[in-house]
């Protein structure tokens, strides 16, 4: 079963809710190895998205929804995560331009474009202890699931699961990008907050596909 506008809107709504719920956790993680604003930044952005989405034409295609997310995050989040997530959604929107329904191929393209957008702006590689450590395994797992002929819901579940373990894999790392890179060895033992928000957002995508809670 392909995923359409309802899924796209539900994904955004779930993302906003889970980011709001996890706001203090994201702040705490960012306090430990950054400057303590990641939860606030992301919540501010996604609340603005929810408000704007209510005004969007109900017939808007998934790409329109993602573009709205992109421009809203760019203009409300600030910090490093604003331009990074903003570019991710912008590129993701471009990858599914014109499509009303997204199949497995489209989803893999969406995720890959999002990841490439983050890399384009932030120049991070896997192992740098950034959100890329969640995005790249997610893209790879989605590609693999799609190659194995899994359903759209299964593809997104695979992506979310990979993002979650990718995020956990940042714990032992020394950071090479972002604020945590100032810390050297002292970042070891802490999880990168941006990788956690990425995992939350991808889990929201999977949940939106199954209608789970």
């Amino acid at each position, binding site marked *: 079963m392909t995923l359409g506008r309802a899924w796209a809107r539900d994904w955004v709504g779930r993302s906003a809710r889970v980011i709001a719920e996890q706001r203090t956790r994201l702040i705490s993680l960012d306090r430990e190895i950054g400057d303590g*604003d990641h939860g606030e930044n992301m919540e501010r952005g996604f609340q603005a998205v929810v408000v704007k989405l209510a005004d969007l034409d109900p017939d808007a295609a998934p790409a329109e929804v993602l573009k709205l997310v992109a421009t809203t995050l760019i203009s409300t989040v600030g910090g490093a995560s604003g331009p990074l997530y903003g570019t991710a959604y912008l590129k993701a929107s471009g990858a599914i331009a014109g499509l009303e329904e997204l199949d497995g191929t489209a989803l893999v393209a969406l995720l890959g474009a999002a990841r490439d957008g983050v890399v384009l702006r932030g120049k991070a590689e896997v192992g740098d202890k950034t959100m890329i450590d969640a995005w790249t395994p997610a893209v790879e797992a989605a590609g693999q699931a799609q190659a194995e002929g899994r359903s759209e819901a299964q593809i997104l579940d695979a992506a979310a699961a990979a993002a979650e373990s990718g995020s956990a894999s940042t714990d032992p790392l020394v950071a090479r990008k972002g604020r945590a890179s100032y810390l050297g060895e002292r970042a070891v033992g802490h999880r990168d907050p941006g990788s956690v928000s990425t995992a939350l957002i991808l889990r929201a995508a999977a949940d939106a596909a199954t209608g789970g809670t």
Partner: protein
Amino acid sequence: MKKLINDPRTVVAEALQGVALAHPGLLTVVTGPDHIHRADAPVQGKVALVSGGGSGHEPLHGGFVGYGMLDAAVPGAVFTSPTPDPILAATLAVDGGAGVLHIVKNYTGDVLNFETAADLAEAEGVQVRAVITDDDVAVKDSLYTAGRRGVAGTVFVEKIAGAAAQRGDDLDAVTAIAQRVNAATRSMGVALTAPTVPHAGEPSFDIGDDEIEIGIGIHGEPGRERIALEPADAIVDRILAPIVEDLPFASGDEVLLLVNGMGATPLIELYVAFRRAHESLAAQGITVTRSLVGSYVTSLEMQGFSLSLLKLDAELTELWDAPVQTAALRWGR
């Protein structure tokens, strides 16, 4: 958390209203998207300077808007880079036809958001250059970090590039001066206590009653190392050495020395630190010919201070001395 605020979500907007009411002839505060610019902007034919970044570092940057320094400042949320929209709005508002220089402290968020705004401004026909300040020697500048942070030395860049723009230098020349100042500036800071971001509600880091954080950033990012509290002279020596070594500053140099309070450090203590830094430099043959002591680049209510050193030459000295009229720095008019 004990703060003189109404609501963490409105503090920046309300402070901007205060700034507007306090400096009517000097500054114009625009809301939506929020920025501060010179009341007489755009100044036709003058290169315009725009800086900005997260709030919580006041008087940086809004306190440095005015004759001979910045044309506009763009405040983000506390400790969070502003988004491109207000940077773009400020850039368009102050362009006097001679182009705009963005002065950006080196943080991933600031760099990315200013970059985007510059692209958008160029698309509207405004010529934009950027200089990234990265004076903090506490951070290793290597492939394995986001590079050095921009800290209190940014004030030197804003003042001196501002004076160059005011005397009529063109965009290339102002950019070159700004880069020259940044390249000749080194800083390092120490924290005795942590700042509390209003929306976070808790101190940015935990620190013992007898500990200090050496190499602190201006956003409560932890520094190089945590050590036991020492006498002021020892602390000054500890952060002055890496500054001097790094450029390196050498015997015979003339320098501008800034002893910068991070928010909650009494002025009397800053002068104690200034005395030691001046003495230690003199002992190395380095002469402090210009100086600044006060809280110019702060980190909310953090107790601590930083030292910044700029190697002067005749031109930089003349530009530093040139008249400036802003809320936080004023002389000559």
